[in-house]
């Protein structure tokens, strides 16, 4: 992608986010039950439901509710969570930062492990080392996360080892050491899942580049192999890896509900599942929008970086 296309890409992203909001609203609205049934539980009587719906504004026509939400978001007001009865903005902001921290640390760890392994596997393709790395990667993608999480807790968080806190979250501001300690196990679980995937993508990308004319030319020019590998080949192969990382960021922001539940980590994934289960439409909308924005932005950044790294693409 040439950088000149950037404004258009941003516009496309915004259009997608708008479509996303409508889809989420319609889907959530169509679900049986509403916030009033969720709030009242077994205390629900027809009269109480009617009274609560009136108080929460759930008796208004759906398009009006959507317009109300949209108007708020466009002016920076994320509205009020129906079931928590608190402004959604601060709740989401906190969860967003938590999820972002977990995601970035995980991505850093996964990349630090996967990229070197992927490069080595590609360079020595067909060797026993390559086979070992590939085989190990299959183990990573085949263990369900809700087995991996408890196993890590039982191995590392309880006596005799008791190396790390089992679960929970400590704010960085309150205690940087506590913050890191609490991140170790969830990051480890997620890194196992991501590394496998990322490693294989890096290997594929690297193999593609190594077979390309571009690298062949470099070799023909008589450049030392190490320079060809690390300066020319990896630089280009990283484009693929970056695209995968961008997708992973989106995944880590919203899809790791189970890891967040197991490690009692207050992230966006648990929040959106809570919101869906309780039919808290403003909260579902807000969180989906935030996750969507991260997804769109991450892909955009990955594309730009790809364009800057890969000379083949930078040329118009």
């Amino acid at each position: 992608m040439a950088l000149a296309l950037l404004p258009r890409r941003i516009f496309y992203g915004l259009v997608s986010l708008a479509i996303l909001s409508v889809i989420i609203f319609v889907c959530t609205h169509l679900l049986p039950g509403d916030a009033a049934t969720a709030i009242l539980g077994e205390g629900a009587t027809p009269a109480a439901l009617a009274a609560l719906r009136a108080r929460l504004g759930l008796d208004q026509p759906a398009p009006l509710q959507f317009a109300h939400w949209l108007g708020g978001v466009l002016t920076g007001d994320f509205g009020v969570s129906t079931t928590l009865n608190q402004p959604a903005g601060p709740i989401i902001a906190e969860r967003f930062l938590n999820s972002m921290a977990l995601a970035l640390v995980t991505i850093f760890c996964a990349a630090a492990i996967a990229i070197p392994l992927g490069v080595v596997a590609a360079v020595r393709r067909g060797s026993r080392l390559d086979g070992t790395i590939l085989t190990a990667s299959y183990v990573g993608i085949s263990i369900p996360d809700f087995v991996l999480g408890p196993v890590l807790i039982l191995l590392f968080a309880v006596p005799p080892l008791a190396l790390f806190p089992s679960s929970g979250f400590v704010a960085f501001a309150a205690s940087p050491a506590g913050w890191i300690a609490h991140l170790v196990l969830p990051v480890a679980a997620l890194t196992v899942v991501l590394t496998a995937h990322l490693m294989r993508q890096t290997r594929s990308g690297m193999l593609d580049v190594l077979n390309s004319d571009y690298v062949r030319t470099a070799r023909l020019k008589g450049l030392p192999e190490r320079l060809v590998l690390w300066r020319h080949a990896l630089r280009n192969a990283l484009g693929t890896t970056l695209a995968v990382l961008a997708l992973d960021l989106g995944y880590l922001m919203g899809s790791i509900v189970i890891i967040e539940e197991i490690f009692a980590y207050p992230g966006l994934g648990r929040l959106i599942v809570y919101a869906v289960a309780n039919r808290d439409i403003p909260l579902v909308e807000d969180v989906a929008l935030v996750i969507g924005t991260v997804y769109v932005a991450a892909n955009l950044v990955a594309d730009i970086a790809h364009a800057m790294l890969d000379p083949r693409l930078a040329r118009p």
Partner: protein
Amino acid sequence: MAPPRVVPALTRRAFGRGLATTGTVLAMPWVLGRRAYGEAKPGGQLTVALYKDLRTLNPIMGIFGNEWRATCNLYNNLTRLTAKGGVEGDLAESYAPSANGASWTFTLRQGVKFHDGSALTAADVVATIEKILDPATAAPYKAELGPIAAVKAVDGRTVRFDLASPYADLPKALASATARIVSERGIADFAKLDSAPHGTGPFILKEFAPNDHVLMERNPNYFRTGRPYLDRLLLRVLPDTTAQVAALENREVDAIGDVEADSFARLSAIKGVDAAQVVGGTFNNLVLYANQPPFDDERVRMALRLAMDREQMTAAITGGLGTPADDEPISAAYEYFDKTLALRKQDLAKARELLKQAGHGNGFEHRLVVSNSPASREKTAVVVQAMAAQIGIQFKIELMDNARYGATIWNKGVASYVGNYGTRPTEDAILSKLYSAKYGIDEGRWAGTEAGKRVEALIEQGRAVTDSAARRKIYDEIQRITSDDGPFIIPNFFNSLYASWTYVHEWPALAINTEMRLEESWLSPEAPGRKA
């Protein structure tokens, strides 16, 4: 390995229905609270792990146990339940009914202050109760307060409750979680009550992250001098049982406020952890609509009852941490539990015979809906299904999202389902809710039957009578009728399960596991919460 706390005698109602048969040792609450530990030492932070949702701190709108576990430390009620199942004044110094039973008068303690410094007056009580009774509030547990017609401030510290019909249980009903006393100012700011409490309780809110944690600090102006002992109280939501157990083992938390049956054995095995269980009144009821086939035929309901092996079911559903039940909702945790009622034995031959008489000799299929929350409902359904299959009744289980269940199935009269109820302060609260069309929801559509009408009349009588022996007679009869003819299968009650390190003293292990009042609790010097 430390054994679970063993308490020598089942003093209360020794070897009553089911108590002796589960093979577990049942700790009695008032014994638990009275172990000699020496002088209570103030100070330190207690961290308690909880399970699942904690959405709001508004006591009037709360429906989850965790919400009540939090609010009972931020607020007080007019009355509170004692460990023995009785009731005593909390914010009320004294209370008495009028001679004809048409009203109750409560006199408030003097010198009680809300967290904002304002003094408790009768006006605060009136504002709170009126807010609960106001239909526009849609308070979920309004009906369980009883037939309150009006509430009046007689003077600054006297409140009179005028009743629509005599109600002997009013003091106990006012101890329920929904009736915590909020200041007039708090009621005026009702929309913010979810996160900004206005209470008189032993702790003051410091920090609240919904569904994650609640941090409270000692209320230095608490009206019970010297209480609470703890400087800080932190409630943490840990939604995964493995993590919960690990957190306790690691001493990241000092106690678990609602232990899942699956982790109890593991917790009991940790040296230095007290795993305590108290007979509770929580149950899951399979609803058999008595106004529609096939369960409108009393013989079919009886056949199903006879197919149940209640002891085996209790062991399987509760993991041995419960007591068998006889299809009615009054457990040994209630004052008027009928201990003479013999547990119904499984009798498959008689069950098949009854089915045949009812014209279902070849059995039948029936839809059974289960909500995904709490998970114990699914266990009840699976085990009931296996028992029923023995006599040819094939339940087809449908497991669904809780909100869909709430909106389309629960109390809608469209399909059998597994309901879930917690322990109530009074027999009347749960009986009215389940069986009365007038005060409750008549969940089994049974109030129209002969037996149902009789029970409805008995419920009405039970509300008005104050004499204990007379009430016992009434509630005994209700238990007999509902057990023989009622519209539910209730195979067991769940024990209330707790776990705490031995350095936590005076842990409130009550039958009603949501009243987790920690004002009397304190920590030994070795507690991690004292070192930080």
